[in-house]
């Protein structure tokens, strides 16, 4: 199977939930979905043994004058040379995505990182303790958001 057919298979599988398809590069397809549809979409890929979840990337979209800030969450699935990315965007005010831990146990690693670094709540993930940041790290400060420029500024502002 060449990369194009592999990507086509993925697109077909994800069609029911897709808001939009994009092919940023020849070997990739980006599928925009609602966060509520994440579980069935991942399930569909898994059921057909389409690749494996390679990484979860968080992207910060800072607020502008006319829209609220948001975090984009990218789930990268790799199969041979083909990469399918499920993209969902959650606003700061309701920053939560469902956990896919029940489907892929090892993903808890990536979800923890996402929670800690971007302040995206992962609903139903088994452990929500303070994970990677020091114990005295202030609450509600997410270092990978663009607004974070260092703890020094933070204390000065106060």
């Amino acid at each position, binding site marked *: 199977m060449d990369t194009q057919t592999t990507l086509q298979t993925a697109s077909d599988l994800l069609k029911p939930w897709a808001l939009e398809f994009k092919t*940023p*590069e020849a*070997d*990739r397809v980006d599928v925009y979905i609602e966060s509520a549809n994440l579980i069935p979409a991942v399930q569909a890929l898994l059921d057909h043994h389409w690749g*494996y*979840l*390679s*990484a979860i*990337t*968080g*992207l*910060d979209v800072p607020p502008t004058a006319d829209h609220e800030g948001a975090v984009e969450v*990218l789930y*990268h699935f*790799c199969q*041979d*040379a083909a*990469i399918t*990315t499920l993209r969902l965007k959650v606003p700061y005010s309701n920053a939560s995505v469902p956990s896919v*831990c029940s489907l*892929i*146990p*090892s*993903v*808890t*690693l*990536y979800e*923890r*990182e996402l929670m800690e*670094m971007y302040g995206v709540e992962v609903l139903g993930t*088994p*452990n929500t*303790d303070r*994970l*990677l*940041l020091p114990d005295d790290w202030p609450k509600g400060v997410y*270092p*990978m958001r663009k607004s*974070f420029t260092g703890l020094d500024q933070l204390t000065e502002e106060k």
Partner: protein
Amino acid sequence: MEKSEPKKFVVPIGPQHPALKEPGHFEFEVDGEIVTGATARFGYVHRGIEKGAETRSWIQAMYLLERVCGICSHVHATAFALGAEKLAKVTVPPRAQAIRVLVGELERLHSHMLWLGVAVHEAGFDTLFMYSWRDREIVMDLLEGLTGNRVNYSANVLGGVKIDVDDKQRDDILKGLEVLEQRAQYYLKVVTTDETFLGRTRGIGTMTYEQAELLGAVGPTGRASGVKRDVRVEAPYAAYPDFPVNLITDTRGDLEARFVVRIKELFEAIRIIREILDKMPTGEIQTKMPRRVPEGETISRVEAPRGELLYYIRSAGGDKPDRVKVRTPSLCNWGSVLTTAVGHKLADMPMILSGIDPCFSCNDRAAIIRRPDQPAQAWDWESLRLHGIEYYKR
């Protein structure tokens, strides 16, 4: 009979422990010698590299990212450079790509031999540890002769490579490979025939194909369980389309298989290096790379010595990357450790830990705590006991 839950006896390993060369913390719940639970915590050397990369220029970021890991530094720079070049639509001359692969494969030799030493040391087999580290000096000398550095080679620049290979370096490498090939054959013989060593590796830490697939194991760890996954084969990058790699897998999935797969990869790396030196493309080694990279995003995957390394790079069109996401192979393989640990002897833990060739500094660009929530953890006391009895029968 009513069974009372036995009191948990926890053996902490780390953050400072003789078995760990890097800080990580593991807690093994043991019942006698049998491990009944495993948890891990990392993050002791978190450096915020991903955030740091956002505030540096593309060139600076490459040097920063090369320092994610001390052992597999070249692949990080390569992954980033390949991604940035893709975004900037720069075509790198074939000679530069070949040199990238050359350094990458030398680095694989170096990394696998380092791992071999560490892993056999965990088994208390210090003689082989000393031998493999002595022989690793050869490949480190070769890298130093080629790039000027023993680690963190800085061979890459955006748009090509910094170093060229002349005839003398070529001859040195070929000479060094002769020795290394013999040594690798010797290692293979030892790890597959030494009785005491086999007693520590055969059938230990076994991960089935299904488990490996589910847990997303990558690299030699996955390949030892029969997962046919190698970016160099699936999606050849740099000069790999011209110098194809043979996939090396094993089906047993135990520690012995991981040893065998990695040592066989030494031979494969030696073969590739020879082929590259033989058919080295001629021409330039650099091309001009713009300071500002056009807006866009890309995913760059390369095969690090430990497995698939994934970079997600996004540019907002400026002279700095907008987002660099690094997913290192060690991160994928932790699941396999904590799952396969349960039910084994405490004495096997260091071996199982090192079996995946863990790289703490790789993990710690982003740190994680996790508990093994895999099915194995859901074992109740009774089934665990039965497993223990079953284990001892053998």
